[in-house]
């Protein structure tokens, strides 16, 4: 296990409830979630031994000082990977280890760049863990164009594979039991992608696969953080998230092959008052189209190698559509992802090349999603996402057949 840098000024050696805040260069943002976590722990978890942990990647912008200087009445611990070791997953791994050492019963994790967190989020994410739940996923309103990897890949795939509807499987804000933290710490499916941005989907998938009692915490307020234009930012996160989903499909195939339809997941935290609408997210549709076109030129050979002939032929039709009529149908998208999962298992291309070749197809599908939902209110867009999931479920026999015994 990698070394860590630990600063525990109050010599905390035991805790019942831990709030973890993973970070890398979040000096300008981390004070707010730290303060809100402190208020939440004080208000809703009186009588428990609590601590707030900043799990950092040796930030160079004084994140640590910002964390320790935040208004906070709860003991704090700073733990960091050694300088040069990056990755959100590595931060979580340190958290799992620390939580295990502290003997904590419940762990709540919130993003360091959150601007909309309230003390009630800590209650909603933590309280179910004091009952019988082992894993708590967030449920909040997001703008229809915020979370396009979630809407178009992570949610439909995990739902149809593992049969549980967890709407925000990579939401970033979670709760999990101390027992599950110890389980995560020792699980053999850990890899380099999980050590980075694959961590969220890895935790959610393992909780689903091992039938840990899962609930979704309705947080009332939208998730407001640094929004990203899906055309502008993708980077390694895409590879790590999708790569982790594909990676876990291999050992877990005997389970997901038997799952035919999905079931809803319990929701905790109704009655938080009026829900707020999320802020707008602007999307550059021209850039999405251009990235799809550029990818089609660059990755044609990879697509031909990775996709089934019928999928490749259908994709050829889509490539010929004029920009004004561009559409990437949902059934085709489901088949593309299923084919890519099989190609990933069979190593028909180097992993990174395969996942890089999927990115322009994702841009194409995102463009189609944006076009299809542009006139829709948030609720209608949600229904569209749900309908998309049903298409994935309907198409699942194709995946099962292609995957083989």
């Amino acid at each position, binding site marked *: 296990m990698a070394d860590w840098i630990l600063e525990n000024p109050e010599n905390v050696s035991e805790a019942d409830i831990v709030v973890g805040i993973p970070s890398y260069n979040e000096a300008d943002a981390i004070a707010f979630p730290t303060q809100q976590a402190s208020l939440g722990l004080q208000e809703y978890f009186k009588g428990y031994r609590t601590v707030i942990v900043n799990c950092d990647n040796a930030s160079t912008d004084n994140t640590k000082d910002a964390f320790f200087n935040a208004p906070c009445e709860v003991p704090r611990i700073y733990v960091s990977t050694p300088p040069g070791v990056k990755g959100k997953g590595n931060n979580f791994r340190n958290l799992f280890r620390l939580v295990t050492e502290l003997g904590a019963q419940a762990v709540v994790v919130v993003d360091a760049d959150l601007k909309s967190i309230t003390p009630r989020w800590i209650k909603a994410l933590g309280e179910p863990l004091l009952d019988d739940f082992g894993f708590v996923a967030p449920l909040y309103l997001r703008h229809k164009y915020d979370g396009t990897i979630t809407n178009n890949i992570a949610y439909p795939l995990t739902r149809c594979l593992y049969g*549980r509807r967890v*709407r925000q499987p990579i939401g970033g804000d979670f709760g999990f039991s101390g027992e599950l933290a110890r389980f995560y710490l020792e699980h053999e499916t850990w890899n380099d992608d999980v050590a980075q941005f694959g961590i969220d989907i890895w935790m959610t998938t393992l909780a689903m696969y091992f*039938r840990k009692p899962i609930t979704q915490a309705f947080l009332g307020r939208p998730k407001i953080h640094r929004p990203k234009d899906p055309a502008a930012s993708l980077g390694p996160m895409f590879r790590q998230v999708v790569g982790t989903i594909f990676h876990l499909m291999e050992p877990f195939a005997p389970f997901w092959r038997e799952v035919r339809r999905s*079931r809803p997941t319990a929701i905790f935290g109704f009655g938080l008052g009026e829900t707020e609408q999320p802020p707008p997210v602007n999307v550059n549709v021209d850039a999405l189209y251009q990235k799809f076109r550029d990818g089609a030129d660059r990755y044609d050979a990879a697509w031909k190698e990775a996709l089934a002939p019928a999928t490749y032929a259908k994709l050829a039709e889509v490539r010929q559509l004029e920009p004004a009529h561009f559409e990437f149908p949902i059934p085709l998208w489901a088949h593309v992802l299923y084919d890519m999962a099989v190609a990933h298992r069979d190593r028909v291309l180097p992993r990174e090349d395969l996942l890089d070749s999927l990115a322009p197809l994702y841009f194409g599908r995102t463009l189609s999603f944006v076009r299809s939902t542009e006139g829709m209110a948030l609720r209608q867009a949600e229904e569209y996402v749900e309908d998309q999931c049903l298409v994935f*479920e309907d198409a699942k026999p194709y995946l099962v057949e292609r995957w083989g015994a």
Partner: protein
Amino acid sequence: MARILIVDDEEHIRTLYTLELEDEGHEVCALESGRNIVEHVESFRPDVVILDIKMVDVSGLDVLQEIRNRFYDLPVILCSAYGSYKGDIKSVAADYYVVKSSDLTELKRKIEQALEARIPQD
């Protein structure tokens, strides 16, 4: 074939659903109210529940919560004349949401899908 519990305060809906679903070979129990739902589920032991939302004496969404609190794995299909409740966060706890129609094709499809949704055990 399945045991189906219908909860709807409109008599003609209960009659229509009962006749059509019994024709398909299902065993049906129809209630006009969602009150005491826990007792009815315990006694009839349905495989799936078809639940109206806007009822005179009780909200179907509250009944859904009662069912979820007690029978977590029991499939529930919300069936309403109004599509607008689909936007209520509480409706997420249902397996499916169907807008009422005299054509039961969609409802029957959802019943089939709900019955298929078995999470494999070890």
